[in-house]
C-alpha cells in the first residue's frame, strides 16, 4: 500500500497517530465523576510524594513486637515483617515510585522530542541515522532494554528511572518525527518560510508548539505503563534499595510473608494499580479534550 502524496509537499503524507495499542489502552469510557475522582486521587499521590511528612511519620521505625499485624486503630493498614507502619511506608513510598514512573516519562518526552525533531528536520543523513537507531531500540522489548541499562549502571532509583527513559524515548521520537513532518509540510510553515523568518524562529514559534501537544498527550497516556515498568524493576530488586520504602519493593517483601499476612501484599499493589488507573483516566480525558477541540 503506498501512501497518498500530500497535496502541498508532494511527499508522502504521514498522519500523526498514536500507536494502536496505546490508543486502545485508553478507550475506557468512564463518566465525568470518574475523571474528577481520578484527577483528585492522582493529585493526592503527587502531594504525598512532595510532602510525605504532612501525611505520615516514621516510615522506618522498627517495632518487632508488632510485626505482621493486620489493620488496627494505631496502624490503619497494619504493620510489616519488622513492625513498620504500612500506611507510613506507602506515603513515603510515593516519591520514589513517582520519580521512576513519572520522572522517566518526562525525561523520555524531552529526549524523544529532541530526537524526533532532529530526525525530521536535521537533514537526510542525520534523520536516517536517528530513525534507524530508534528501529534498533524498538526491536527488542522495552523491559529487556531497561534490564540492559540497569546491568550497565547498577540498581538504584535514578538508574531505574534512566533505564525506563531509554526504553520509552525511541517510541516518543517516532511520534514526534511523524508529527513534525506533517507540520513542516503545512501551509503555515511554508508561509513562514516564504516570509523569510529565521529558521530558529520557525522551529520555536511554528513547529514546536504543534508537535508538543500530541507528545504531551502520548506521554500522559504512557505514565501508567512507565509506573508499572518502574514498579516491576523495583519488585525485581533493581530499583530503590532497602530500607527505602517503595511500592514495588514492598510487594517483593510481602511475597515472603504471604502465609502469615496477606494484607501486606494488598495495599502496595492497590497503591500501584490505583495510581496507574487514575493516571490513565486523566490522560485519556486530556486526549479527548484535545482531540475534541481539534475537530471542533
Amino acid at each position, binding site marked *: 500500500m503506498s501512501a497518498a502524496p500530500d497535496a502541498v509537499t508532494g511527499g508522502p503524507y504521514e498522519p500523526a497517530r498514536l500507536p494502536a495499542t496505546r490508543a486502545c489502552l485508553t478507550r475506557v469510557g468512564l463518566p465525568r465523576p470518574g475523571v474528577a475522582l481520578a484527577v483528585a486521587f492522582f493529585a493526592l499521590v503527587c502531594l504525598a510524594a512532595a510532602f510525605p511528612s504532612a501525611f505520615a511519620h516514621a516510615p522506618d521505625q522498627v517495632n518487632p513486637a508488632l510485626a505482621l499485624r493486620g489493620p488496627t486503630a494505631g496502624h490503619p493498614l497494619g504493620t510489616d515483617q519488622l513492625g513498620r507502619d504500612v500506611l507510613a511506608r506507602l506515603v513515603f513510598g510515593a516519591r520514589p515510585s513517582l520519580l521512576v514512573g513519572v520522572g522517566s516519562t518526562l525525561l523520555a518526552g524531552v529526549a524523544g522530542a529532541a530526537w524526533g525533531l532532529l530526525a525530521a528536520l536535521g537533514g537526510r543523513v542525520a534523520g536516517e541515522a536517528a530513525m534507524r537507531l530508534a528501529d*534498533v531500540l524498538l526491536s527488542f522489548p*522495552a523491559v529487556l532494554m531497561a534490564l540492559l541499562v540497569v546491568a550497565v549502571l547498577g540498581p538504584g532509583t535514578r538508574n531505574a528511572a534512566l533505564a525506563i527513559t531509554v526504553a520509552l524515548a525511541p517510541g516518543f521520537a517516532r511520534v514526534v518525527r511523524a508529527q513534525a513532518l506533517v507540520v513542516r509540510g503545512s501551509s503555515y510553515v511554508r508561509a513562514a518560510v516564504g516570509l523569510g523568518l529565521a529558521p530558529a524562529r520557525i522551529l520555536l514559534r511554528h513547529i514546536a508548539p504543534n508537535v508538543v501537544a500530541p507528545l504531551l498527550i502520548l506521554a500522559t497516556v504512557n505514565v501508567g505503563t512507565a509506573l508499572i515498568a518502574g514498579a516491576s524493576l523495583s*519488585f525485581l530488586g533493581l530499583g530503590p534499595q532497602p530500607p527505602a520504602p517503595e511500592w514495588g519493593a514492598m510487594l517483593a517483601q510481602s511475597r515472603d510473608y504471604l502465609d502469615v499476612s*496477606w494484607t501486606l501484599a494488598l495495599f502496595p*499493589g492497590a497503591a500501584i494499580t490505583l495510581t496507574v488507573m487514575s493516571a*490513565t483516566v486523566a490522560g485519556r480525558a486530556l486526549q479527548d479534550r484535545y482531540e475534541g477541540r481539534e475537530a471542533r
Partner: protein
Amino acid sequence: MPPLARRLTRRLALTLFVLWGAATFAFAGMRLVPGDPARVIAGGVQANATPQVLDAIRDEYGLREPIVVQYARFLGRLLRADLGGSYQLGRPVSRVIGEQIGATLALAAGAAALGFGLAVALATLTAGRPRLRALSRAVEFCSISTPNFWIGILLLAAFSFHLGWFPVIGDDGPAALVLPCAALALPIAGVLAQVTREGLERALDQPFALTARARGATEHRIRVRHALRHAALPVLTLSGWVLGELLAGTVVVETVFARQGLGHVVVAAVRGRDFPVVTGVVVLSALVFSLINIAVDLLYGLADPRIGAAA
C-alpha cells in the same frame, strides 16, 4: 524478484542490522561499566581478588587487547553462535539458555493461549451488546492497569496459601503452570479483548454480516464464522506487542512464583553484572522478536487475501 521475496529479503536484512545493533549495545554496555571489567568478572568491587587473579582474568578474556580487536572477536564469536561463558555460573551461556528456555517457553505459550482465548471469548460475547460491553470494559481496564506481579501474588495468596489448590512454588507438572499463566495472561487479555471487540463490531456493521443474517444464520454463527476472521487482522498486528509483554512478564512472574527459566536467569545476571548472560538473552530475544514480526507480516496475507493481492 517477486514482491514477496523482495519484502522478505528486506526484512531479513533489517533483522541482521537489528541483531548487530543489539550486540553492539550489549558490548558497549559491558565496556561502559564504571571500573575495571576484570574486577566485575571476579565478582564485583567488594570481592577482594588478588592482582594475580585479576591478571589471569585479563588474559583469559583478552581484556589487554585494543577495544576494536575485542569488539571484532566478540562479533566473530557471535556469528558462530558462541555466546561466551557466564562469569557467575562458570558454564557456556548457550548451555544455560538451553537448559532454561523450555520452562519459559511453556509459561509463555500457556499464557499466550490463555490470553488470546479469553480475549476472543470476551469479545465474541460482548461485541455490540452495550450493557455487557460496559461491564467487560470495566473489567478489562482493571486488568490492564494491574501489574502482573500483583495479580500473581494475589493468586498465590488466594489459591495456594488459602485454598491450597495449587503448589506454592516449583515448576513440576501442569498444576504449577496454572497460576503463573493466569497472572501473565490477564493484562494481555484485557488489551486483546478491546481490540478484538472493536474489530468484531466493525465487521458486524458490514454488508456481509447483514447478508448472512438474511440467510438465516444464527447470531452466534455470524460472529464466530464470519466476523471473527475480520477481527483477526488488528489482533495479529498486536502479536509483536504481545510477545514483548510475554518476555517482560516472564521475567517478573518467574520471580513471583520462584520458577526456573530465562527470566530468573536474566534477573540474577543483571544483579551480578554477568554480561555474557545478559547479552545472550538480549540478542536471542531480539532475534525471536524480529522473526515473529516477519511471520506476522506473512500471516497478514493468509488472514486477509486482499493484502497479498495489493502488495
